């Protein structure tokens, strides 16, 4: 539905769900394209969001011990949900069953709802009048919120927001988001200059996270609320 709101055709929307099948990347891609980003930077942003699946795959390959021939097929289903279900199983057999059932169910449902959503959005017409353009950022926020556990993540998010918004008028579409991604190595680097996780939490705080939080608070209620 977000995809249709972002100007993609029905075929493009469905291809996205069938071929990409990792929700955060799909939303990111559509969001970046809708914001007028060029296809390469939009794809790069989506790609980075998909990178976490590699880490799921690492754990799953040990857990499931799949034969080599099956791996290329199983790979498409390596996502948050299948990993969570598989990791919760007591035995390898039940983990394999959990992975397969979760993967198949989600794949079918995800693609069905994509078709329905795309058709539905078409029928609704002007999605902006219905407030559907707020669905994208709300989805991102819901994905982001559970990640903001420590000062490190909050500092990274605050810095990324500053970079993303501050550079928006200055750089071509899509580039500010990629520059904002540098907030991650930047915060890690600042942390590395401290003495450990405890010291760096404070070391990063006053200079890098408190300032942006204070600066963004009045204009950005969402940041403030977090």
């Amino acid at each position, binding site marked *: 539905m977000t995809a249709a709101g972002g100007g*993609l055709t029905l075929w*493009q929307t469905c*291809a*996205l769900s069938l*071929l*990409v099948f990792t929700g955060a990347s799909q939303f*990111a891609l559509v969001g970046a*394209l809708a*914001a*007028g980003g060029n*296809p*390469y930077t*939009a*794809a790069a942003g*989506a790609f*980075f*969001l*998909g*990178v*976490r699946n*590699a*880490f799921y795959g*690492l754990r799953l*390959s040990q857990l499931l011990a799949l034969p080599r021939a099956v791996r290329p097929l199983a*790979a*498409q289903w*390596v*996502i948050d949900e299948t990993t969570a279900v598989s990791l919760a199983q007591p035995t390898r057999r039940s983990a394999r069953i959990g992975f397969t059932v979760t993967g198949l169910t989600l794949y079918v449902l995800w693609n069905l709802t994509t078709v329905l959503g795309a058709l539905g959005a078409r029928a609704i017409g002007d999605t*902006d*009048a*219905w*407030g559907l353009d*707020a669905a994208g*950022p*709300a989805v*991102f*926020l*819901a*994905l*982001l919120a559970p*990640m903001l556990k420590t000062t490190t993540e909050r500092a*990274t*998010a*605050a810095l*990324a*927001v500053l970079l*993303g*918004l501050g550079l*928006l*008028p200055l750089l071509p579409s899509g580039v*500010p*988001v990629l520059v904002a*991604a540098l*907030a*991650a190595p930047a*915060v*890690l680097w600042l942390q590395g200059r401290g003495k450990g996780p405890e010291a760096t939490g404070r070391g990063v705080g006053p200079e890098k996270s408190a300032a942006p939080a204070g600066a963004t608070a009045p204009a950005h*209620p*969402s*940041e403030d609320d977090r």
Partner: protein
Amino acid sequence: MNFWIAIALTAVGCYAVKLAGLLVPAGVLERPLVKRLAALLPVALLAALTAQQTFADGHALALDARAAGLGAAAVALLLRAPFLLVVAAAVLVTAGVRAMSG
């Protein structure tokens, strides 16, 4: 056409990293710094994307009904509302504010 390029690149890239995770020997990605960077990158990207989609109007910054919608989503998240309710809150509040402001 441009959209197809983006879709193809994303599909190939996302599939490649999924497969890579299954094929790459552990250890390579097990290094602590790589792990922490991989955990932080989505945070930075999501935060920047959230802010841009809420406060950007083309290349200009704008404060409009979307901000109210995102505020509602944030409140819903703080109240530990389920995912769909969070999104619904954002959509409804945005539509409401827009209807009221004409």
